[in-house]
């Protein structure tokens, strides 16, 4: 855990998917310009997480998606799927999906205390293009978050997650997205 003076924090997670090697680059920085990010002013000082994927994907086979689960003190019901609320309810588990999508999140809370822990997974789809198996296969994962106590906001270091962390969420995800299946473990382990 760290104060904002040590930010940004970075984490590089190599992976292999669809026969290609890639890398997810996580950066946690301080939200020092809430208006520029589309946030309210009280978001200042909270962490901003961006995770990018390199190299860029070339087609359907190496498309990927980000699945994020959050355990926060506002909801207080354990880890839950964290979609992008302005889009409304989604029938699939991905916050972002497509050609090398960027994960972005800038959590903020205007109460006195706030705990926020995210488990964020990069996933591909099982099956062939027109098979429509609707199976999410985790490739890698990392945790990040923050703890607010009064005016003090501490940022949790981004850390790699093991396959067991993904497995611990699969039963919930299967209930939350009943048209989808969630393959256990990490598919094509990090190289």
């Amino acid at each position: 855990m760290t104060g904002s003076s040590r930010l940004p924090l970075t984490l590089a997670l190599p992976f292999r998917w669809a026969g290609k090697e890639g890398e997810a680059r996580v950066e946690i920085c301080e939200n020092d310009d809430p208006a520029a990010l589309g946030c309210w002013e009280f978001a200042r000082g909270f962490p901003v997480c961006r995770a990018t994927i390199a190299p860029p994907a070339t087609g359907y086979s190496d498309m990927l998606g980000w699945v994020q689960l959050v355990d926060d003190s506002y909801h207080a019901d354990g880890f839950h799927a964290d979609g992008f609320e302005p889009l409304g309810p989604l029938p699939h588990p991905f916050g972002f999906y497509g050609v090398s999508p960027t994960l972005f999140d800038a959590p903020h809370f205007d109460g006195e205390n706030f705990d926020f822990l995210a488990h964020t997974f990069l996933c591909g789809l099982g099956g062939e293009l027109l098979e429509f198996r609707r199976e999410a296969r985790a490739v890698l994962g990392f945790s990040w978050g923050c703890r607010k106590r009064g005016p003090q906001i501490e940022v949790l270091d981004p850390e790699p997650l093991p396959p067991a962390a993904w497995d611990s969420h699969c039963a919930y995800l299967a209930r939350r997205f009943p048209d989808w299946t969630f393959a256990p473990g990490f598919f094509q382990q990090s190289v």
Partner: protein
Amino acid sequence: MAASSQYPRKLELPYRWRDVDGSVRLEMRENDDPAELGCPGLARGFPTCQATVEPRGKGYADLFGWLQLIDLKNFSPSELLQHSGEGFEFDAFLPLGPAQHPFIYFGLAPTWFDAPHTAEDWDFRSHTFLCGMGGELHEVRREARAILGFSWGFAKSGAEIEFYGPDPLGPEDWDLHRDYLAGAFPGWKFAPGFYEHPLDTELSA
């Protein structure tokens, strides 16, 4: 309409969104390596298109969505193709299932990609739009604001595949689809015209 030998073609569409200048770079070319793109072998010779957005965006205010409508003719109805054949209709990203929002891809500077293919003699015309969201983050207005658009497509007749476009679309083209979109996505609004009209266009072969 043009033979695939006249491709790749590139189209650059400048835009302005929330006082930041940006650019969409589109490339349309022949699919000469279906396996590399994750397509079956029959996709060889069809068009494939990719559009990237610059700059990469910083936050919630820069989240964009790609919205695509296709006018499909000469197809066999199936569970996969939820089209009536009576004009432009929303084109969903089928592997993810039906969504309640109108975007095929959504995120920070999302890349748009399509590589259609068929064994049938389709006439496939697409109107593809880059959209931002109206309102503030916590307002949850669910309003799509078109920023720019382009058309592209192909016509297959036996072994011959001819390509359309890519060509820039104007705000009047977007407006033609708004009533349909409002009916297809009743929880959403679709603002008229282009939000901060593209400044210029440049087409190069």
